[in-house]
């Protein structure tokens, strides 16, 4: 059987139409569709901001009990494991001394109480987060409201983010964390061996209309709010009180501010 060019083009064209058209029909029929189509919403109580931030009034956090209570509030809600040793430590909120917290604002003659006082540290939710720039899977990313979060499902454990973060805010699960969680909160997932984790500014609580757990437990020493809203409480504090940030010279623009020797001037 011979075929001229014209016949060939006709058959080729027809089979293309049948093939593509047929696959569309089969796709539609085979897919258990949902008619009206579902929607996703924020939830009625969610609280929003253009850029979330926090002020920590160091002078208001005094006793060892204060530090413990605040750290426990966070770590117990989020099932953060306690391995009982520094080498494998996993932390969302922790303390360090002045020298390591504000290395560029140190001097040899400063007030001894501040030199020895522990400061509460957490993820700075930077405006220009170095961790986000290096993450190869976009597992860590900055939300439109300024919060730098982790999508644990995408974390491949490469730890580039840990190398990039100048604040030590990220921890790696070298071991299975589950046996080291003293009291498990059944409402929140744990993590597993091989992923990085850190503070998420309690996004899951903001979605329900609650503030970050640390701020809630701090008796007013930690104030969170919208940095872009000139009428917010946090902006009023920033406008009237002298505050500093960690390592501002690195240009990451942290969203966590510290009041040192502030309103209650007795550390």
């Amino acid at each position, binding site marked *: 059987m011979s075929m001229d060019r014209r016949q060939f083009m006709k058959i080729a064209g027809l089979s293309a139409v049948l093939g593509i058209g047929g696959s569309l029909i089969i796709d539609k029929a085979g897919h258990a569709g949902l008619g009206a189509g579902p929607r996703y*919403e924020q939830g009625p109580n969610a609280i929003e901001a253009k850029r979330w931030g926090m002020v920590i009034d160091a002078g208001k956090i005094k006793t060892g009990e204060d530090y413990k209570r605040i750290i426990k509030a966070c770590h117990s809600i989020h099932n953060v494991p306690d391995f009982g040793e520094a080498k494998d430590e996993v932390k969302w909120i922790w303390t360090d001394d002045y020298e390591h917290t504000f290395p560029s604002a140190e001097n040899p003659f400063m007030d001894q109480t501040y030199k020895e006082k522990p400061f509460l540290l957490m993820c700075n939710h930077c405006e220009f987060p170095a961790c986000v720039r290096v993450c190869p899977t976009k597992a860590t990313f900055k*939300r439109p*409201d300024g919060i730098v979060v982790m999508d644990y499902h995408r974390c491949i454990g490469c730890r580039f983010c840990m190398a990039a973060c100048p604040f030590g805010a990220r921890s790696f699960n070298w071991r299975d964390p589950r046996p080291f969680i003293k009291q498990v909160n059944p409402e929140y997932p*744990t993590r597993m061996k091989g992923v990085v984790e850190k503070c998420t500014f309690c996004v899951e609580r903001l979605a329900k209309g609650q503030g970050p757990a640390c701020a809630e437990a701090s008796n007013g020493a930690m104030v969170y709010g919208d940095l872009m809203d000139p009428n917010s409480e946090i902006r009023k504090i920033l406008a009237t009180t002298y505050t500093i940030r960690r390592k501002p010279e690195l240009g990451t623009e942290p969203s966590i501010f510290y009041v040192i020797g502030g309103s209650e001037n007795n550390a």
Partner: protein
Amino acid sequence: MYNGGKIILGLAVFAGLVTFPFLYNIGQADRQPDLKLDTPVIRQMAVKHCVEPKAFMRAEHMQLLNDWRNEALRQGNREYVSSTGEKYNISLQNTCLHCHSNKKKFCDECHNYMAVHPYCFDCHLQPKENVQ
């Protein structure tokens, strides 16, 4: 024919071995997974239904869960409005497993049958009764 007996015996043994798996299973009905819905929460429901129609859930729940986690974590949308207009808090352990608290006799029963092993529960917590 040389060694005819041996060849025929060999062929018979070969045929027996090849057909053994089929012969062995003759008369045994394929065991279907036995999904249990009798959890405290589902027992309370007047009309027993899932977040979406059963046929959709059976075929597409993995895709739905994938959408749930992307919407919740990456878009900040933690509420799901189903195709029938019902609202659900987006959560694997607090919503799906709140109703399906018998994970072992429901999710695992089917997954074991299908030889699927979701790794979700390395992190997500399952109701106590399901932990060995």
